[in-house]
């Protein structure tokens, strides 16, 4: 998975894609995931880091992360590896 590296996320959760000119709002956990994706973390690694930080379980995280990735793909912020 490859995230658009130019994405600028500000502290208040405003995300700007300079390539397309689109703007988004993202919640704190969403911003953390995008930052992790930008620094090249794998899906497994992201889940394990989030499990350390948040009061939830692995199954829920897997399902929600999958859903979040789908939306990022739909917004063309994330693409499958070539």
């Amino acid at each position: 998975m490859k995230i658009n590296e130019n994405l600028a996320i500000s502290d208040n959760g405003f995300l700007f894609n300079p390539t397309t000119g689109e703007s988004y709002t993202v919640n704190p956990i969403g911003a953390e995931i995008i930052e992790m994706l930008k620094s090249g973390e794998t899906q497994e690694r992201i889940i394990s880091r989030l499990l350390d930080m948040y009061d939830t379980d692995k199954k829920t995280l897997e399902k929600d992360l999958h859903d979040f990735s789908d939306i990022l793909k739909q917004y063309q912020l994330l693409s499958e590896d070539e």
Partner: protein
Amino acid sequence: MEKKQYERPHIIKLEAGMPGKFGMRSESLPVTHIDGVSVKELTTNFGSPLFVLSERTIRSVYRKALKSFSTRYPKVQFAWSYKTNYLTAVCKIYHQEGSWAEVVSGFEYDKAIANGVDPARIIFNGPGKSADDLRKAANGGSLIHIDHLDELYTLTDLAGELPRKPLVAIRVNMDTGIYPMWDRFGFNYENGQAWDAINKIMMAGKLELVGLHTHIGTFILSAGAYGVAAGKLADLALGIRQKFGHDIRYIDMGGGFASKNTLKGSYLPGSDTNPTFDDYAEAITSALVNSGFRPDNLPLLILETGRALIDEAGYIISTVIANKRLSSGRRATIIDAGVNLLFTSFWYQHPITPAQGFSQYREDNTLYGPLCMNIDCIRESANLPLLNKGDRIVIHYTGAYNLTQWMQFITLRPNVVLIDEDSKPHVVRENEMLSTINGPEKTPPHLA
């Protein structure tokens, strides 16, 4: 290290025209308690989905409505519309408050009698009364509201064999300037049918004409229409006095007042725009007071309002079964209460609130019920916080019609709980079981 509270990741594109979080709707604010009882406790003890009724709200709304009318008119009587909600506990609250009963079938008539209502305080409406129904009601001295000529003739025939003269009113339909005009019930005012029926009753002398009744429609958003209707009934009453020297005892304005619900397609919420009891009372009582009645001889004013009295007192608590995305990427949430319980979601945008605290993030949602049926949609669009499986939501203004029109379709109906004025919940109707459904069934021997 303390772990942070989890919220699922969420991203949304900013689009022109999209409301920011300050454009958020009131329904985002969580409702965690109903009359002091926590939603969580209610579902733990009584299950989900769950119908909840507030005795406090039933009584306070009733008193507010009564006050609106009785401060403007000397003789006012409410009659509880059984079809709106005929749970025994509910009917008994209204009867305790002083309401008569308004029934529209033999079944409802029997229910009112079983509830201990004096037959003389039962109003019998509806187009489908059988000869047995009519006999029973006439014998009890109930007020029979005649819907059509066939009923008038049947009752006139029966009158000969009855020990007492049946007490009757006629139902009148009319043009009050609203759309649609309900002309399928009763006798029309404008074309003279109503006056004709009155003459038949008075001339035959077999029935005692005690009142005039109308019911102009449902969810009427114009209070003025009731003023027009009251004026027309007053004209008829004065005509009867003039021609026959006979005073009718009451004018029954029926029901049809709007509750606080928002009709689909409305831009502003119903809780802001729908007329209040004061608006309806002002229109009706001014028309009566300003008509030709002598001040010392005003007829009793009867009101059969149902929906506007009880809608607010009803809630459905429901639990999120699943989250999914539709092909468009749109969020859909499946909850455990469907149109089988919430018939009224076909025409209202019922307010929906989460039952637990949330962050400020919201998403547009389509809310589906649990039925395997495409029409099972509770809200096409609701802006809600990020709901997870197992979260509870509260659906508001569900007190009217849902507990009489609910369907036993592919699933069983849940508990109904009444929270009393001391915040104590009581089950007033137990959840159904397989035996509830199988009980009345009979299996032929060759299939047993």
